[in-house]
């Protein structure tokens, strides 16, 4: 009986197992791509739905073409890249405190930098956009940005034979539809990961990466700024009023949640690459980092919903000496990720 088990039962069980595995495997496609999204080791898990849109090189390149293509704005004058410039960490340049859209229409908010978007849950200063895929719809359709209906964008792409062929190659589709345009743009933006500044090298074990002054700055930063600009993203993704509007004219988060408790609150911005994203704040109020620190220590005044970590008992909470400010600024500059700012994979490769 024992030998029988060995001779018949085990081989047949093995055969069953193999067949069963064989039919399971059919649904999975082999993943052989060296070009993919990688989570930096010291980062939290990404929130993006990669299960629906896995990044690959061709999709990334297609997204890049779209990102640099001005023909996708109403009058052909503005591309995503007009306001999101790589050397400024994909923020707008200081020439345009409020980003300029078609016909040079001026917006009311400063274009934020684009990086580490895979780790965010909500987008835009007020967090109204709840998935990265949806961000380009607002950019296209906003009257002060590209001022074109998303339907027309997709129509223009569909009528362009080169695009059509590329969409077929990347997504296997005969006809270009909205979600694939959004998936391509997301693939491009998801690869904008900035995690290679000297601060990151320090965190990952290189004790020499930060100078003594920068290290003192880090200690001060953790004391005064960390509660909102939380490491490693340098934002806790919450909405707060840090008092940058003299008069509240932009309701910020209130527009989305529709409660006055959120009036004048804005998404805490990351401070990575802050050296190259001047001007600062949603309303582009400050040109330099010292001005920002002076705002926190002296400029800020009592206001509706002002954050108690910023202003309390009739005075600013954050107190810093001039020396401490210098150290914090030195530390903030160690967050500049030059490899990201000059990474050639993001360079415009459109012919026109």
């Amino acid at each position, binding site marked *: 009986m024992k030998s029988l088990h060995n001779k018949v039962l085990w081989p047949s069980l093995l055969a069953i197992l193999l067949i069963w595995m064989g039919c399971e495997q059919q649904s999975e496609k082999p993943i052989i791509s060296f070009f993919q999204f990688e989570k930096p080791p010291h980062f939290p898990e990404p929130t993006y739905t990669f299960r629906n849109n896995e990044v690959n090189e061709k999709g990334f390149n297609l997204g890049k073409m779209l990102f640099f293509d001005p023909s996708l704005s109403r009058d052909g004058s503005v591309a995503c890249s007009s306001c999101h410039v790589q050397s400024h960490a994909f923020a707008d340049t200081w020439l345009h405190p409020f980003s300029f859209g078609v016909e040079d229409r001026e917006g009311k908010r400063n274009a934020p930098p684009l990086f580490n978007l895979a780790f965010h849950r909500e987008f835009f200063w007020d967090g109204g956009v709840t998935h990265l895929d949806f961000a380009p719809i*607002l950019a296209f359709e906003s009257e002060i940005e590209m001022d074109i209906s998303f*339907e027309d*964008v997709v129509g223009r792409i569909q009528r362009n034979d080169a695009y059509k062929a590329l969409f077929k190659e990347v997504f296997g589709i005969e006809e270009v539809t*909205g*979600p694939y345009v959004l998936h391509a743009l997301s693939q491009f933006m998801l690869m904008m990961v900035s995690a290679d500044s000297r601060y990151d090298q320090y965190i990952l074990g290189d004790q020499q990466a930060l100078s003594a002054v920068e290290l003192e700055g880090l200690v001060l930063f953790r004391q005064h700024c960390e509660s909102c600009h939380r490491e490693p993203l340098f934002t806790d993704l919450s909405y707060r009023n840090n008092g940058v509007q003299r008069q509240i004219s932009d309701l910020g988060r209130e*527009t989305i949640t529709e409660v006055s408790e959120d009036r004048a609150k804005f998404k805490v911005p990351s401070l990575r690459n802050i050296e190259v994203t001047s001007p600062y704040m949603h309303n582009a109020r400050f040109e330099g980092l010292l001005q920002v620190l002076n705002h926190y220590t002296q400029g800020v005044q009592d206001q509706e919903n002002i954050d108690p970590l910023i202003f309390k008992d009739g005075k600013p909470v954050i107190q810093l000496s001039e020396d401490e400010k210098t150290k914090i600024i030195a530390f903030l500059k160690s967050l500049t990720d030059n490899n990201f700012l000059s990474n050639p994979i993001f360079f415009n490769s459109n012919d026109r």
Partner: protein
Amino acid sequence: MQNVKQIFSIITIVILSIVSYSCQDKEDPTLTTTGEMIVKFDNYVGNQTMVVDEVGSTNYRYTNNSGQKFNLTRFGYYISHIKLEGPNGELFIDEMNASADANQIKGYYQVVQGNSETYNIHLKGIPHGQYNKITFNLGVREDGIQEGAVGGILDRAAGGWFWNWNSGFINYIIEGHSDASLRDDNRVQIHIGGWKNIPSGDSTPQRFFDNNVDVSLPFDATVTVSNTLRPSPHIMMDLLKVIGDADLSTENNIHSPAAGKAFASKLAGAFVVDHTHQ
């Protein structure tokens, strides 16, 4: 011994063939035990059938409860999460899937006034049996939004009703003109959307509003789904139940979850199963 060996071989062959059969046949193993139903939606304004006019039309066909005249230039709603129940525990839950691929969108339906193809929802794979109740969600819930870009009737570029500034679908859309509205072209736009509640706490107010509405309707009679029987319940929707009491001189520009809340609370009462065809 020889016998035992044979028995084992036979068992093995039987098991192998069952396994390989179940491998191939994932498509319709229940071929003969499920049937279909066609749920038909008929939209009315009071006792008048609903007609949509060209944008700009001043032909005010309808009158609300306070005598304000209006017409419609766009009207429709999303239906999802359909469920059928029967007296003997019969249960059918329509499969849901949100995907970029329009062909993989499952369980979402868009009823668009003026496009008669959208009035009939064809349900398949319903277990044979008796049914006397339909439940559905009016709108698109979080599961249709937070998967990211979606296609088909949910594609903003192909007629999907999607808010770009406050991500989410417009569950129920009303557009038209009314002489009571003093907006440009006497416009009326009532867009009812919103898909999440962040409930109030001790010292915090409620943030956001979920304006998805559960609609649960008993049939007027019990119907049977079988190989030969494909029943068809007719659902009537009366817009006046939703905006009959609205003052179109002020409530003519509704574009946010909080503003749409009062209308959303009336939506469930606008639907009724008028009759069922067996």
